[in-house]
């Protein structure tokens, strides 16, 4: 499923709510639901802060058997993806099972920044 919103912090809660609802109905553990929600929030906040003025944020959710795949993108002014040494990146890696970010060439010479997240239904807890 796809959600398109203006790249503004005011709309973040919509994406967050969709993420939480999908994870809940996919029977994720409460930890995983909360983690996904925060990870989506973090990735979208990063996209919004780097978006071109009046940009659009496109979010896609794919619910798979035991995981949710989330990707989001928006047009950005920079060819540089966010740093992998930042606190934000640390947060994303801690909250998800896989995360990636990169910049691709967009239409009309623009750049598109993209985030890809994967969250599994349950944490692999040591000792289980």
């Amino acid at each position, binding site marked *: 499923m796809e959600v398109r919103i203006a790249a503004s912090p005011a709309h973040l809660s919509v994406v967050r709510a969709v993420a939480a609802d999908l994870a*809940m*109905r996919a*029977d*994720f*553990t*409460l*930890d*995983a*639901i*909360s*983690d996904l*929600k*925060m990870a989506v*929030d*973090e990735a979208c*906040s990063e996209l919004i*802060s780097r978006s071109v003025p009046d940009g659009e944020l496109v979010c896609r959710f794919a619910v798979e058997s035991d995981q949710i795949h989330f990707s989001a993108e928006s047009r950005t002014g920079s060819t540089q993806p966010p*740093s992998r*040494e*930042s*606190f*934000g990146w*640390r*947060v994303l890696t*801690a909250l998800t099972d896989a995360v990636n970010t990169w910049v691709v060439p967009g239409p009309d010479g623009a750049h598109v920044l993209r985030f890809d997240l994967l969250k599994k*239904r*349950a*944490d692999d*807890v040591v*000792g*289980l």
Partner: protein
Amino acid sequence: MTQSSERASSDYAHLDPVLVELAETPVGDPRRTELRDRLVTEFLPVAQHIARRFGQRGEPHDDLVQVATVGLISAIDRFDPTRGSDFLSFAVPTIMGEVRRHFRDTSWSVRVPRRLKELHLAITGATNELSQHLGRAPTPSELATHLGISKDEVYEGLEASNAYRSSSLDELLVGTDKSVSLGDALGDDDPELMGVENREALQPLLQQLPERERTIILLRFFGNLTQTQIADRIGISQMHVSRLLARTLVDLRKGLLSE
């Protein structure tokens, strides 16, 4: 407040030797219980006074007195007269911290129907129980089976928990509470932080956080503990950890952006 605590200090001056005696009595000595009981009884008006100050906020008065008394008892147990400070200046923030935590743990920021409140309570209780049993957080369907209700009801209850917690009161009292002591849960310096490039900006922001929030952030993002493990470690519910974590992340992000 200043006036009343001045008066209060002199009212309770006769108890100072009792506090010293309690501190000097070794743990296990039956005399301790006696001294402790006397102190709790005599200082009870302080707890009642603080409970009254927090009245009018929709919590039953009796509950508040009880929570304040718990704060008083822990103040009596932890007070160290050799530090040279006055008992009340130690006890008042401790008791207020306890009451504040009670509000934070049990308040709703918007009106929620009673049925949903009860559902939320049932889910919180079942989450704790199942986490113990499973060694991880439960899923909505596990909660539904455990509680003998439908999955839709669990969804409803989980959604209602978003409306939980009154933030205004937290904001009001931030800075007055020195009672939260989780320092032993984690060292002062976290070597993991060294790898983070914006640590110069991050460190002061982390230092400014209340100790509990800071501990949760460090355990989750640098200690790689799950929310359930953190909840277990610091003695609050998973949902509470989840809320604190989400809120603190937003604050940190704002702080980092404004650098």
